[in-house]
């Protein structure tokens, strides 16, 4: 797709052949290209993990930070320069284990960024330990007796936190992925896109075949994304059928709207105003 070259890069990746990340990478390039964005307007923020390497394989500004800290970094960048299209990218370990607290609060804050979570149900980069999304019973090197914890349902949680855009897509369904990412980037507010991402090396359960047999487009199936309770109900479906699509979308004020200093445009373009500061200083002058 010639169209796609605007964001494509020819750098060698550090991913395993066949990894679901490849599908996400090219879907992302395509979506951004279709949105007519140019790479220097886009900022990719990521943490550490296999998913976190994505920004290095696509054209754009990159801020590759710490494991788990994707969201606060992206929030700070967006608040400082709203002209940038900010796309946060991370693994499920990054986002829901180490970064769980930021996830909770970024959803609440409704900062105007897109958050792509590559859900492979494992810690890929550290060699396959359980992640918060691992299915119960999954045996890994740190859970030799099988994962016991309730899997973390980020979709349901985001809906509960009144996340303004909550969607799921699948690395193996390019058209759906492109469509969903585009909708997410266009959404005003915090847009969560969970992407089901087969890890061909460490996850022998949630494979391409597993998903191929199960995923269906819930919007095509008639789900109304403005219905919060039904979105929450739908998010529990994880068995013979796995819904992808937009679960929930609502319009609510974004974080930047709350800060009067942002009314005049991006902070990063704002000149220093010595008069105002002098005025503040003067209040401390003894009469």
């Amino acid at each position, binding site marked *: 797709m010639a169209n796609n070259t605007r964001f494509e890069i020819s*750098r060698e990746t*550090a991913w395993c052949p066949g990894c679901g990340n490849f599908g996400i990478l090219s879907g992302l390039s395509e979506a951004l290209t279709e949105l007519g964005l140019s*790479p*220097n*307007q886009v*900022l990719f*923020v990521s943490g*550490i993990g296999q998913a976190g*390497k994505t*920004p*290095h394989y696509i*054209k*754009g*500004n*990159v*801020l*590759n*930070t*710490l494991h788990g*800290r994707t*969201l*606060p*970094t*992206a*929030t*700070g*960048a*967006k*608040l*400082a*320069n709203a*002209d*940038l299209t900010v796309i946060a990218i991370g693994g499920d370990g990054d986002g829901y284990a180490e970064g769980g*607290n*930021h996830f*909770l*609060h970024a959803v609440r804050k409704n900062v105007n960024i897109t958050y792509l979570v590559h859900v492979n149900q494992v810690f890929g980069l550290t060699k396959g330990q359980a992640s918060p999304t691992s299915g119960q019973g999954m045996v890994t090197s740190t859970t030799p007796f099988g994962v016991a914890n309730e899997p973390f349902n980020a979709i349901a949680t985001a809906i509960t936190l009144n996340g303004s855009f909550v969607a799921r897509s699948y690395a193996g369904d390019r058209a759906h992925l492109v469509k969903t990412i585009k909708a997410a980037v266009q959404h005003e507010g915090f847009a969560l896109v969970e992407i089901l991402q087969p890890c061909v090396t460490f996850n022998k359960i949630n494979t391409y075949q597993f998903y191929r047999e199960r995923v269906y487009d819930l919007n095509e199936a008639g789900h109304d994304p403005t219905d919060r309770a039904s979105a929450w109900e739908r998010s529990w479906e994880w068995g013979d059928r796995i819904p992808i699509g937009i679960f929930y979308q609502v319009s609510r004020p974004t*974080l930047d709207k709350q*800060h*009067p*200093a*942002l009314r*005049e445009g991006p*902070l*990063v373009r*704002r000149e*220093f*105003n*010595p008069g*105002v*500061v*002098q*005025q*503040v*200083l003067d209040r*401390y*002058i*003894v*009469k």
Partner: protein
Amino acid sequence: MRSFNIRIGGEAGQGLVSIGNILLEAIAREGWYLFANQDYESRIRGGHNYFQIRLADEPVRAIQHGVDLLVALDKATVNLHWQELTQSGHIIYDPRVVDALPEDMKDSGRLIPISFEKVVEELGQPKVMANAVAAGAIWALLSDDITVLQDILAEMFISKGEAVVEGNRQVAQAGFDIVRNHIGAEVPKPPKPTEKRPRMLLKGNEALPLGALAAGVRFMSAYPMTPSTGVTEFIAGHAEECGVVMEQAEDEISAINMIIGAAYTGVRAMTATSGGGFALMTEALGLAGAAEIPVVIIDAQRPGPSTGLPTRTEQGDLLYAVAGSSGDFPKAVLAPGDPEEAFYLVAHAFNLAEEYQMPVIVMSDQHLADSHVVVDLLDLNRIEHRRGLVAQGDEAGPDYVRYRFTEDGISPRLYPGFGEGLVVSAGDEHDEQGHLIEDAETRTLMMEKRMAKLEKAAREVLEPVLCGVTEDPDFVLIGWGSTKGAIKEAVEILNRDSGRVMGVHLPQVYPLPQNLDKILNLPARKYIIESNYTGQLERLIASEFAWKPDGSVRRYDGRPMDPEYILAKLEGGIRRGK
């Protein structure tokens, strides 16, 4: 210097701070200099707190032991403090709450009973005005003229209407009169300075954020933690006026990562915290070092380890700030000694951060944060905005690389979106472009590039601030941070006794000034004065200069360093040892 020390004690919630603030303003307007500190517990109501104002005819930057006027709003105040009264010291107390009084003062005429609430009741005013009564009462010992105080009350309450203003003035006058009737007009008033220059009254937690505003800070994120919260609240309170975003974070980790994100885009960004919160920030401190992102962190120290004494003071985070985070990377640590210096150093911190593209830590502590002083006017014109190297023209074009190797290790920044170039930053080891690498060669070069910046920064360190006898001293007292004023006054006292003592304050503790060895090698006895147990500055200097002092004064009870404490600990050292 002649000074007069007022200590107002009571429970949290009794309005100590309100009374204190009225008096601070009045004292300053009358032309005195002052130093005021606060002693409070980690609770909202009850307990025992005090607010202490030392006024003087010269600039003053430290507390003193003797109390000239003790004001007791609760029982505990008399019991805990009366023994610190000077020979001629007075106690103003509320007889409704204070029952026991020091026997030996009983008939001295220096006990002044005045029931603040009763005065208010009798004048038919609401209870909250008791503070004004207290202020009036105290003022009676300072001045014959209550006008200044009345003016201040008027300014403070004008927004609540004329009746409130009038009420406050009336009850303040009543307090003033009662005390006057008791002590008579002949009680000597503290002398005022002859010359009255334009001056400012402020505390550390105002000076620090003012420095940031003066530096053009645009973004702050923080999570409240005593004694840094004041900085955060100040910026939040001035956010609209000054065009700053202050975003309260869910935790300190989020706060520092948010400012890293903001700083990456090209704005000046900061956070403020205290020990435990700083701990949570240290991982990202390393990120700022590795990815070369300029951020300013204020660490307002309090006694540790761990939660320790949340509302007290200590200088226990120095080595932590210096060693903070894994691996080696450039950073700077500044240590303002008073509010005035805090203002200029915070502004300087932003310059350092951007010029060297590294994190800069400013060490505050509860004593600096909460203490008020009268200072010369803070001068905005003295503050430069040195934004460091930023890619221009073609440099910002498609071939831009973020971490270009240069001689001094400083690569031109580009603000993302400000040029055609792409800005790729990473906390993993990376190449000039910012992409991840594995090979030893690039690693070595990138490490040396970063450390070259530190070596350059080490050649431009803030000079030590000297006081006292700077030529051929016999003794040298060295300190850093909020002990500055106490050391200076100790030096003055010793030199009054015809000592030859020099005081050295280090406004920058990392990197240490390279010429510090000149001072360290002086043929004099050298002492390090600091508020921590293990002698952290001493260890830091030793680690750099392989040097040991002749002695040290270390305080670790959570209370601020003061001149008398220093002198007592040095007794036998300087005084006798000479």
